C-alpha cells in the first residue's frame, strides 16, 4: 500500500512544520531557477530567493513576468529547466504535486461543484487517511478560521464569490501545509470585498503562522500584506525587499514605475557630494536628490523619481529650492487631494497632488508655473528609458 506510506510521510512532515518552532532553515529555497517553454520562451530566468517560516512573501509583477510560473513550480505543476527548489527541507524539483508540503489557492477557487463545503474542505485530510474524527475536527477548525462555520452542508454554487474564496482558502489550509501558495486569490472579487479580504488574509496568516507565497499584479495588495516583496519583470527579479524599501528606494526604473505612482524625470548627474546628487534634467533645470540607488556616477545618465505627493506647486519661481517650469494641463478633484497633470517646456508629463485647500485659482492654467521638490523626496536611479518620462499610471492604472 504505497498510498498508506505516502499518507504517513505527509502526516510526519506536517507535524515537523509546527509553526511555533522557529529556526533558520527557510520554508522555501529557490536557487538559480530557470524555466523555458520550448526553445525560445524563457518564462523564468535564473531567479533565487528564500521564504522564511511564517513569512508573507509576495511575487509582484505585470502579466507575463513569470510570477505565476514561479508559483506553479513551487506547487509542482511545472518542473524547472534548471536550478534547485527546496521546500521545508525537502528537495522538491522532481517531487510529485500530491507529495509536496504545499497547498495552492487557485485564482478561480477550483472548488469541487459536486461536493459540499464539508466534503471540499475534508478532501485534503481524507487523502492523508487521517481518522474520521481528526478530519472532522480540522474541517471545523478551518471553517471557523475563515468565519464560515455554518456553511458546511452547502454546495459551492450556493455561496457568494467572497465566500467561495474563503472556502478555497480553508480547503488549502485544512492540509496544514508548510507553505500556502496563493495565485491572485482576490482577483475575481470587487474592490470593497478585496480590501476586506486583504486584512482577513493577513489575520489568518498570523493565526496559522505558516509561510504564504502570494502572487499578484496589484501593487497595493502586495504593499499592504507582505513582509517582503519580489518585484518581477521579464522572468527576472528586479527588486527583492520590504514594502517600504521597494516603495521608497527602488533598485531599478521598472520597480520605480511599477510600485505606486511616480514621476520619472530623465537627466544627467552633474555633482556628487555627501549631501546628495545634483541632476540636470533634460529641460535644463537642476534638481537635487538626497538619496540614490547604486550605480549613480557623475557624468552618467540618471532618472529622478519623485512621488506626485512630494511635488509642490509654486505660482512664482522659488529662490531657495530648485524647480521646474511647467504648464498645468488637467485637474482632477479627488476629495482631500487634487491631482494635476502638467507639461514641462519639452512636453514631458508630470503628475502632482496638491492638498485641496491649497488649490490654485483658474488663472494658474493660463501661464507658466513651477513645481519644486525638496532634495529629501527626490530619489535618483542610474540610466533612463529612451529619454522619455514614464509616469506610473501608464504602467499600473490600478494605483
Amino acid at each position, binding site marked *: 500500500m504505497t498510498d498508506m506510506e*505516502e499518507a504517513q510521510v505527509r502526516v510526519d512532515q506536517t507535524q515537523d512544520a509546527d509553526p511555533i518552532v522557529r529556526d533558520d532553515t527557510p520554508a522555501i529555497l529557490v536557487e538559480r531557477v530557470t524555466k523555458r517553454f520550448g526553445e525560445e520562451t524563457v518564462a523564468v530566468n535564473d531567479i533565487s530567493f528564500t521564504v522564511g517560516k511564517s513569512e508573507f512573501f509576495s511575487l509582484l509583477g505585470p502579466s507575463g513576468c513569470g510570477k505565476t510560473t514561479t508559483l506553479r513550480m513551487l506547487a509542482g505543476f511545472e518542473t524547472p529547466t534548471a536550478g534547485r527548489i527546496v521546500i521545508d527541507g525537502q528537495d522538491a524539483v522532481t517531487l510529485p504535486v*500530491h507529495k509536496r508540503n504545499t497547498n*495552492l489557492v487557485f485564482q*478561480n477557487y*477550483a472548488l469541487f*461543484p*459536486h461536493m459540499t463545503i464539508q466534503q471540499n474542505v475534508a478532501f485534503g485530510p481524507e487523502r492523508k487517511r487521517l481518522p474520521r474524527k481528526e478530519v472532522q475536527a480540522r474541517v471545523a477548525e478551518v471553517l471557523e478560521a475563515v468565519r464560515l462555520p455554518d456553511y458546511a452542508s452547502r454546495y459551492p454554487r450556493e455561496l457568494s464569490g467572497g465566500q467561495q474564496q474563503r472556502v478555497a482558502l480553508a480547503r*488549502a489550509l485544512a492540509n496544514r501545509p508548510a507553505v500556502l501558495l496563493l495565485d491572485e486569490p482576490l482577483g475575481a472579487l470587487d474592490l470593497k470585498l478585496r480590501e476586506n479580504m486583504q486584512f482577513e488574509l493577513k489575520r489568518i496568516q498570523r493565526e496559522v503562522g505558516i509561510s504564504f507565497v502570494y502572487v499578484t499584479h496589484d501593487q497595493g495588495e502586495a504593499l499592504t500584506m507582505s513582509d517582503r516583496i519580489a518585484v518581477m519583470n521579464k522572468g527576472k527579479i528586479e527588486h527583492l525587499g520590504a514594502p517600504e524599501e521597494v516603495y521608497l528606494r527602488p533598485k531599478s526604473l521598472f520597480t520605480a514605475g511599477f510600485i505606486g505612482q511616480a514621476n520619472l524625470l530623465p537627466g544627467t548627474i552633474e555633482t556628487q557630494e555627501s549631501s546628495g546628487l545634483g541632476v540636470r534634467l533634460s529641460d535644463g533645470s537642476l534638481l537635487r536628490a538626497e538619496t540614490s540607488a547604486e550605480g549613480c556616477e557623475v557624468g552618467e545618465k540618471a532618472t529622478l523619481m519623485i512621488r506626485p505627493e512630494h511635488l509642490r506647486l509654486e505660482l512664482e519661481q522659488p529662490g531657495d529650492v530648485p524647480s521646474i517650469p511647467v504648464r498645468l494641463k488637467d485637474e482632477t478633484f479627488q476629495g482631500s487631494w487634487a491631482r494635476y497633470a502638467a507639461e514641462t517646456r519639452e512636453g514631458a508629463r508630470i503628475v502632482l497632488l496638491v492638498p485641496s485647500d491649497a488649490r490654485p485659482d483658474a488663472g494658474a492654467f493660463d501661464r507658466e508655473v513651477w513645481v519644486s521638490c525638496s532634495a529629501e523626496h527626490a530619489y535618483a536611479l542610474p540610466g533612463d528609458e529612451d529619454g522619455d518620462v514614464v509616469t506610473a499610471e501608464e504602467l499600473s492604472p490600478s494605483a
Partner: protein
Amino acid sequence: MHEVLDEEPVVRSRSHQRGRIIAYVTSPTVVLLVFFVGPMAVLGYMSFLKFGIAGVGGYTGFDNYHEVLTDPTFWEVLWTTFTIATVAMIVMLVFALPLASVLAFKVKRYELQLLLLLVLADQLNPLIRVYAWRILLGKNGIINTTLEFLGLINQPIASLLFSKTAVVIVTSAEYLAIATIPIYAALKAVDPSMLEAANDLGAGTFTRYRKILVPLAAPGIFVALILVYIPLFTEFLTPALVGGTSGFMIGNYIEQQILKTGNWGVGSAMSFLLLIFSVVFVGIMYRLGRIGRLQTATTSSQ
C-alpha cells in the same frame, strides 16, 4: 447578424410563413412514417401471423409471443447477450474515460485533429473492421504469434477468436468512439484547475478519476451508456463473424428465425420483445441520468 436574420421573416406575409412551418413539420414526419413506422407496423402485423412450411397460415393471436417467452433458448441467448453487452460496456468505459480525459485536458494542440481521427475510425466499414480483428485474434493471428514469439505462451490461445471474449473485444472497440465523444463533451465543461486542485490536495491519478473525473463526467457517461448499450444489444454482424457458437447473441437468433428457419412470426415477436426491453432500459437510464445531471449541474456555473 443574428437580429437581422431573425427579423427578416417578420416582413414576409403570414400565409407564406404558415406554409413554411407546415413544410418544416411535415417533411420529417413523412420520412419517419415511410421509413420507420411503416416497416415497424408490418413487423408488428407479422408477429401475430403463423408461418409454417406451407407458408403464411393466418392470424394466431399471441401464440408467437407465448412461444418465444417459453423458449428456454431465447432466455439463454438473452442472458448471453446481456453479459456480453455489459462486459463490453465496462471494457469500453475503462478505455473511453482516460481517452476522453486525455483529449479534453492533455493534448491541447492536436485536440481537434485527434477528435476527427476518432470519428473517422468510427466511420470505417464495420465489415472491414471485424475482418481486421479476425486477422489479429485468429489462431495464427498477430496476437497469438507475437505472444508465442515472446515465449509467453506455448501454443496459440484458441479461445481468442470465435468466443464471447472475441465478441466483447470487437464490439467494445467498435463503439469506443461513440462512447468517448459524449464523455469528452462532458469533461470539456470541467475546469482543468479542478483536477490540479485535487492533485495539489494529495490525490493521485486513481483518486482524481474516482473522486473528480467520474462524478463530473457522469452526464456524459449516461449518454454514452444509452447510445451504446442498445446497439450492443441488437448486434448481430460481429457475433456472426467472430462469436462462434458461444458468442451467439439475440440478434443472431432473430436473424436465424427469419432468414434461416423462415419463421417471420416468431422473429418479429422476438424483435418486439427486445424493443420493449430496450424501452424499459432507457427509462431506467433516463431516471438515473437525471440524478447525475442534478449533481453536476454546477460544473460550468462558477
